[in-house]
């Protein structure tokens, strides 16, 4: 059936089975491949996007649940929190393979939108669902902290 969704301020109409996860709508229907597939079961965080400013796992969010809620992805051109994090991700030299970093940044953005000045424990707690096999964790923490100092 026809679904309307709003992604990064743009509205799209997609004819699709309502159970299709948002992840695959973004990646394969809209070709917004910045949002990554990692596990398909909500265990790795690579597919994290914001749904009305709240971090969700796109692989666990059927398109039927998105409705008129605003989806923000790593490819946003206007979200200031995301853009600020991106800047600090580069500054702190976080990325190695880089594949998980879309999800890391979006998850961090979700954290900062509810808690703009998280302490170390709060960062670790919030980010523990996002796997990075390259092991860039300490730099992820540093980048998030640095971004909260200079918003």
């Amino acid at each position: 059936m026809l679904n309307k969704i709003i992604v990064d301020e743009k509205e799209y109409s997609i004819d699709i089975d309502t159970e299709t996860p948002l992840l695959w709508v973004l990646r394969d229907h809209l070709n917004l491949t910045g949002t990554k597939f990692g596990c398909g079961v909500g265990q790795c965080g690579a597919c994290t996007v914001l749904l009305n400013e709240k971090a969700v796992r796109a692989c666990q969010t059927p398109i039927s649940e998105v409705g008129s809620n605003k989806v923000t992805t790593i490819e946003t051109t206007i979200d200031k929190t995301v853009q600020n994090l991106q800047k600090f991700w580069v500054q702190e030299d976080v990325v190695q393979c880089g594949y998980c970093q879309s999800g890391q940044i979006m998850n961090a953005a979700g954290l900062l939108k509810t808690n703009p000045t998280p302490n170390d424990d709060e960062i670790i707690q919030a980010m523990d669902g996002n796997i990075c096999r390259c092991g860039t964790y300490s730099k992820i923490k540093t980048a998030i902290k640095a971004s909260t100092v200079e918003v």
Partner: protein
Amino acid sequence: MIRRDFLKTTSVVTSAFVLGFYLPTKSRASDTKSTKALQPNAFIEITSDNQINFIMGQVEMGQGTYTTLAMCIAEELNVDWEKINFKPATVNPIYNSYFGPLMITGGSSSIIGKQLEMRTIGAAVNKMLITAAAKRWKIRAYDIYTKDSKVFNKKTKESFTFGELSLDLTTMEIPKNPKVKDLKDCKFIGQPQPRHPKESWAKVTGKAEFGIDIRVDDMKYAAILHPQVFGAKIKSYDASKALEKNGVIKVKQIPTGIAVIAQYWWQAKEALSELEVVWDKGTFENISEKDLDDEYSNVMKTDGSSIRKDGDSQKAFKDTNKVIEAEYNFPFLAHAPMEPLSFLAHHEKDKATIWSSAQSQTLTLGVAIKVLGVKAENITYNTPYLGGAFGRRGTINADFVLDGLYVAKDESYPIMTLWTREDDIKMGNYRPKYKNKVKIALDTQGKISSFDAKIVSQSIFKGSPFEAFGYQNGVDGAQKEGLADHPYDINNHDMQAYTMNSPIPVLWWRSVGHTQSGPTVEGIVDEAAFAAGIDPIEYRINMLTDQRFINILEDVAKKSDWVNRKKETNVGYGVAIHESFGTICAQVAKVRVSQNDFKVEKVWASVDCGFAFNPQNVENQITGSINFGIAALKYSKITIQNGEAIQSNFYDYLVSRISDAPEVVVSIINSGEKIGGIGEPGVPPILAAVPNALFDATGKRYHSMPIKLRS
């Protein structure tokens, strides 16, 4: 794995010559639109509008090779660093690796194998640009310099962009022996440099294209139903229900399973559950982990193939009154790179286009030629970014590559074959399971007088195209490395290997055989130190002869303030040192134990890779390797039950998370010795330093991974 005997004989200077050779341009044809240029050539493209592109034969999978190799070129060719672009190379022998006649990225070999070549090429082009400008201005080369992708006249301050001179370069001779700066005189190489901003920004904005992200016109997607039991075959299948599902275009059998091709990948994946397959599960269905353990233990009762035999081990054991024995057990491990495995191919009768995130372009191309029946020159080969690899994409049996090729073969549209995470965890190509039994004798001073070992595992190399140099006299290279060549001054050895067989494919996993030899050697040496009543660092230094090892140990002792380490309840410190891929790395780990759990709180790492081309990347790789190792120490294992892997995704194949990550302090020693790699050498020491620290904290030795604390 470093195999010096396999080093290609082509000299670096010869390689610089190829600079002006014109490559088959097919796959880069679209790049020629920007008018005439010094292009395509092998390593550096300069377009007339001053786009400077570095062509990378090595794949970028997170290890930072694009940045560091570019630094090597840029040390000599004075480009505007932030504006350079990276372009993956096509398949051509001029990009062959350090290991021999194939392009492959692995074995921590990129800098070892390519650094001098890149510097030489940079120097050659720089010299050519100066010569070209000298001709135009009719002045001496001495009065010209290059900076920020421009050539300047010292006196008049006039300048040309490199691009403005690019046409001149196409007709010039390439300097035969361009002078390359000594490493000690380098201004860029050797200084900490973050990941190149083009790569970094692409990756943080979601714009970087990984294999899974490639989108082309009319493409379809495929998911595959693979057998669960290793070695199982398809007897028959019924696809009628799957074919009724929304979006499903076609179902076809391929050698490894049944592929569903659909308009979108989710549709293909959902339709897999509608397939009805009758499997011939074969004999491995009756095998579980305990059977493998029994088999591995039993085989040790016989004589194995000799890894190392010298001195008189039997006599040493007869003469001693102190013997220490231990059995180390390391499980099968999946690599689990974050990007699931994928392959995109478009087969058009006598030609094809492929997008492959494999670590070896040459092997992938070879497989493509065979499967598709298309000539090499008619295959356009594309390499995207690799979303982690850790050896997995250097697949010897070409599993995901073959899947992608068989799916796309004879179809009229491009098809992206994408594995699920479950495919990735369950399809094998694991780090082999190892059972290592070691026995050492101590002399009256507490020094090790004999070192015996029995190493039992499947072979990575046997039966592969690399068998000739990776499997010799019944010994797998991965059983031997780091064990037979341990650094300690011990006179007697009897080390034996046993090759096991099963339908489970095994593969190199970040730092390969050193993942077993590191914790084995450094575990038993630590036990010896304790038995001798000597401080573990002092004990190691007493038995070492190579000054580089001693320096690194002394450095890590100093950085961690080892002698003043605080004795707290439930806190332990452990040390380990290991050489792999030409690099020596020592680590001190601080662990804290609480009930049945432990946390690695801090790690001090000292590393001697000869010369650190990019110290910042060295630090990042060592830190990443430590986190990679912690996953194996704490969580990861593949367990076989009724012929299949029990684990299937990140809820049961656990890896390290941010809460597991220790603070890491990296110290680099530029010894000026032979250059070593950096992607892997950080892994082996942590695999021993942590168990040794746990002993310090608990008084108990842990010989098996993942570690489960005993109460």
